[in-house]
Each structure stands twice: as C-alpha cells, then as structure tokens.
C-alpha cells in the first residue's frame, strides 16, 4: 500500500472519520477533533504503521500532512 493510502487509513482510524481525505496541504484546522491530544495519538499510530520513531523536533515543525509524508519517505529510505 502506498504511503498516502496508509496515512489515510491511520487518519480515518484515529479520528474515527471515514470522510477524511489525505492531501498534501491538509492541516489540523481542517480536521475536527485534531487537537494536541489527538495529535500525539496520530503520531504514535503513524510510528506503529511505518515502524518508525519521530523526535519532537521532527514533528513539531511539520506544516502540513504533505511534509509529514515526505518525512516518512525520507526516513524509510535511510
């Protein structure tokens, strides 16, 4: 499954919302219930999905989902 599809699966699961559509410019203000608590759940769910670990520094500066997917691609290629 490609990265975008896997992101979509995780997002829909964490936010319990099958209508969520992943796009590069997606940010927290466009997703209901994407608050600081769910943000951590989302990150931990993505870490589990991709078998990766993100530092606070890597996560906190991400501007949108596109940058998050790029980060995952970069770490998977390392």
């Amino acid at each position, binding site marked *: 499954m490609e990265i975008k599809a896997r992101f979509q699966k995780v997002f829909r699961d964490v936010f319990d919302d099958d209508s969520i559509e992943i796009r590069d410019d997606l940010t927290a203000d466009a997703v209901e219930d994407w608050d600081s608590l769910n943000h*951590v759940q989302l990150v931990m769910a993505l870490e589990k999905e991709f078998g990766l670990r993100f530092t606070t520094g890597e996560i906190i500066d991400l501007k949108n989902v596109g940058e998050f997917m790029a980060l995952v691609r970069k770490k998977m290629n390392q």
Partner: protein
Amino acid sequence: MLEQFLETVKEKKPQFLKSILNSQEQEPELFVLLGEKILALLNPSQDRKRIEDLVHSYCSYTYEQNRLQFIYELSGAYPAASHDEANTNVYQNYEVMLHYMESLLLTQFLWPHHLQIVRFFVDRYLPYFREMNNFLALELAPGHGLFGRIMLEKYPAARIKAYDISPISIEIATTLAKAKSLNERTEYVVRDALDQSCRVLNGFEAIIAGELMEHLDDPSLLCESIHDQLKPNGFGFLTAAITAANLDHVYEFKSPEEVREMVKKAGLAIIDEIVTSPPSIKASQTKIPRVQAMVIKKA
C-alpha cells in the same frame, strides 16, 4: 504580545489552539492578566522571533507531555525511576531545564487546569495572609518562581526564602524576580528542599510547595518538613500530580485520597482543596492526569 502569541499558534500550530482557547474561555480575565505578565517576563524586548520561539517551546512541551502520558498508560510506570535520576537528567542539565521552566511557566495560563490552580492560589490561599504584615514565606522548589512572585506582588511587606536543588531554576527564578523588582525581598538558594540541616522549626507563616510532591522518592518527608517549619498560625500551599506523567515525576499518586492521607499523617489539616484535570480526556484513557492543590495548616 498575547495576541501575537495566539495568532502564531493559530497560524503555525493549530492543533494546539483548542485547549488554549478553552483556558481563555474558563478564566478570560486571569488568562489575559497572567498571559501578558508571563510573556513580558519571557520576552521583555517584545521581539517577534522570540514569540515564535516561545510558541515552539510551548507546543514541543505540550506534545512531549501528552506523549509521556500515553507511554505511561501503556507501561504503567513513570519515566524516572528515582529523584536522583531526575536530578541528573533534568535538574542539573542546563538546556533541558531552560526549555522545561520556560514551557512550564507558559502552561500556567495556557493549560486550563494549571490556570485553575493559579486561580485557587490567588483566591483561596493568599487571602489567609490579609491580617499578617511583614511575614516570611518558605518556597520549596520554586522552579520558575511564579507562585512566590504572585505572593510578593500581593503583599508588599512579605519576604520569601526559597530552596531549589536545580541551580538553573534558581538562576531563572532570581532573574525573573529581579525583572519584577522583587529581588530585595527574595532569597533564592541552591539547596535540596528536604535538607534537614537548615530546617527552621515553626519558622514560617507561609510555606509554598507547588509541583514538588510527585518529584520526590518519599513525599511524606516533605509533609513532615512542612509541619515542622510552619508556624502554628501559618498556612501552607501544596500541590500533587495524580496519575500524571512527566520526565521527572517519580512518586505515582493514584488518587486524591492517597495524598490527603499522607498530608494528615504528617499532622497537617486540609482546610481547602481543588482537584482538576485537563478538559480534553479520551474515553479510552485509564489514567486520568489530575492536579490536586490544598491549603493546609498544622492540625
């Protein structure tokens, strides 16, 4: 500056805005008053870049705290095994403490449950000193020193002696007191809060021990120390974190009742209390983070 701070969160880190707005909604006046004061202390030159750095610091800390709480839920244990470990990894580490104290100070108005504790301190603890003049307070582990400074601003004749094991905390608290022209009435000393050699029996009209109990291997020793050093007509302010993880939380209180029992066993009476938690709790969470604050006196 507060408006700039909020705009920056909204623009750059919107996932952190909801709970901040919650805090603002719960205590609109105190949020603005405390927020402006804290931001003025942390950014005296009102530098735009510094505001962005403070937003970054706050959001990083909030993310880390939430993450630690989830890990604690899964593991069942706090990250720090002992006070010594916390001291080595946190209190003696300059970079870690700078980020910690700066961020923690910001949470005092940005986190709804922390702002409630400040409200409790101001409205339900400080009034006990209305009739006292020229009183001496002991502040144990002041950290960023906020509570002591609030007391000194309210009571112009009061003085504070404060002990903290972290030289970085002492440096930060001293600097912030100086910025508010309070340094002539404060004495900040690098010292273990439980150091028996400097214990003054019945020495203080006020003892403040906020955010300390859960950092100790044996918090009952703190309760005993407060009992010994509080004057018979004195009042103490004590807080405890309950099932709330942090990098340097050591003692896991499981319930408010456990804290009450410990306090009473030390010969202290609880004359007022609040237990509060973050507003956003997930239904799946089994360990609800709470803060318990108490006004205490000798029984």
